[in-house]
């Protein structure tokens, strides 16, 4: 004991939570060394704290579902009529309401609401869809191969009415495989595929943006597919990979740097 200030229950908890300054911590340690029963109790609280963190750790590690994507929520707010990412019971209520209306007035099938929004969130969803279909294809993942890069760039730039460049990710270990044109609810998009020596594939989707024309790099995930999307000067990009894929942040940063230069 150096200061003679009595050790309080609050001090003991702050000790467990590692919130004491060094001097007070030393005093608490000294106190505990002289009070074995208290030391045992406090050690138990420390173990309890660690066990609690361990037991709940998995809840923070689960992949974030798309309805909790901030980018999506921001976009949904910009389009208040479409609130596509409500919870399941609310969607169900909406579906039942639709059935009732349909029964009376005939079938009216709306566009799937997350497709009517044109911004970054739907770009991300389109990239994930394209990845699912084409990156998994081992027969013909691309329509024009890397060797026909010039022809591919000309073709997609013509159809997108926007000059599109193919980022070079070779320095990061990903070879350009080639690409194709893919459909989206907002017209054609360019899809470029890359792979590494282990056969891990990445896809980069690019299309013109009616909204979110200049959006910062943001992470997104669609089930097992993760990606980063951004847009610049009216052209949107999303780089995506499967769950076992690489850390996309540096790759997306590099691709973005190239598309902006």
């Amino acid at each position, binding site marked *: 004991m150096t200061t003679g200030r009595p*050790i*309080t*229950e*609050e001090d*003991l*908890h*702050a000790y*467990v*939570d590692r*919130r004491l300054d060094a001097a007070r911590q030393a005093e608490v340690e000294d106190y505990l060394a002289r009070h074995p*029963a*208290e030391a045992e*109790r406090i050690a*138990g*609280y420390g173990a*309890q*704290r660690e*066990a*609690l*963190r*361990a*037991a*709940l750790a*998995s*809840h*923070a*590690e*689960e992949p*974030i*579902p798309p*309805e*909790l994507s*901030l*980018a999506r*929520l*921001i976009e949904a*707010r910009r389009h208040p009529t479409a609130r596509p*990412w*409500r*919870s*399941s019971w609310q969607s169900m209520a909406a579906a039942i309401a639709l059935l009732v209306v349909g029964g009376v007035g005939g079938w009216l099938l709306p566009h799937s609401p997350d497709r009517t929004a044109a911004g970054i969130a739907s770009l991300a969803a389109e990239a994930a869809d394209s990845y699912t279909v084409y990156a998994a294809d081992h027969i013909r993942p691309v329509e024009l191969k890397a060797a026909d890069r010039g022809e591919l760039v000309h073709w997609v730039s013509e159809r997108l009415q926007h000059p599109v460049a193919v980022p070079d990710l070779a320095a990061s270990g990903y070879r350009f495989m080639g690409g194709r044109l893919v459909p989206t609810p907002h017209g054609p998009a360019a899809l470029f595929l890359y792979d590494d020596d282990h056969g891990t594939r990445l896809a980069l989707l690019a299309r013109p943006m009616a909204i979110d024309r200049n959006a*910062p790099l*943001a*992470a997104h995930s669609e089930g097992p597919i993760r990606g980063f999307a951004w847009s610049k000067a009216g052209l949107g990009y999303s780089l995506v990979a499967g769950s076992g894929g690489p850390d996309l942040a540096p790759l997306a940063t590099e691709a973005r740097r190239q598309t902006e230069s």
Partner: protein
Amino acid sequence: MNDMMLLVEPLIPALRRYARSLLGERAAADDLLQDCLERAITRWHQRRGDGDVKTWLFTILHNLAISQLRQSARRGRHVELDEVSETVVARPPTQEAGLQHRDLLNALGTLPEEQRSVLLLVSVEDLSYAETARVLDIPIGTVMSRLARAREKLARAMAPDAGARDQPTNRHQPTNRDQPTKPERPTLWRVK
């Protein structure tokens, strides 16, 4: 919106864990977090300029959770809030979590909600005592006394001879003046 993405997005996993720990069910917790994020988006510019986004978000989330727990208690049978929280929290965690984790989470579920939230914010979410006090809108002394009671109760529930040592010997008494025998629930239920 750019700063919002940068400041809020990294906190989503922790917010999700807190919501899940309070409500027990993933679906309900995710709905709640979605509401929380929507509010955060709407009110982003009304935030007080102290830059303390973490405390601000946990406050919104906590208030939503409490009003939801209260509503489900009211909607359901005539049950006590604590009883409800206990049943919703006391469910098996993920597969990889061992029996011990399950026992611990079950025991956590038996704590009154007000003690549980203090314990979670301090021990798991690493909020300081002052931040926890702000999130729950209670004095710091109350945070400390609830934390002490939560830890003691949880330790007793997890002790192998639980029940046999209900009378702790020669216990160091907390110095808080704030030791209500009945938890001051209305404070907790306040929704901002």
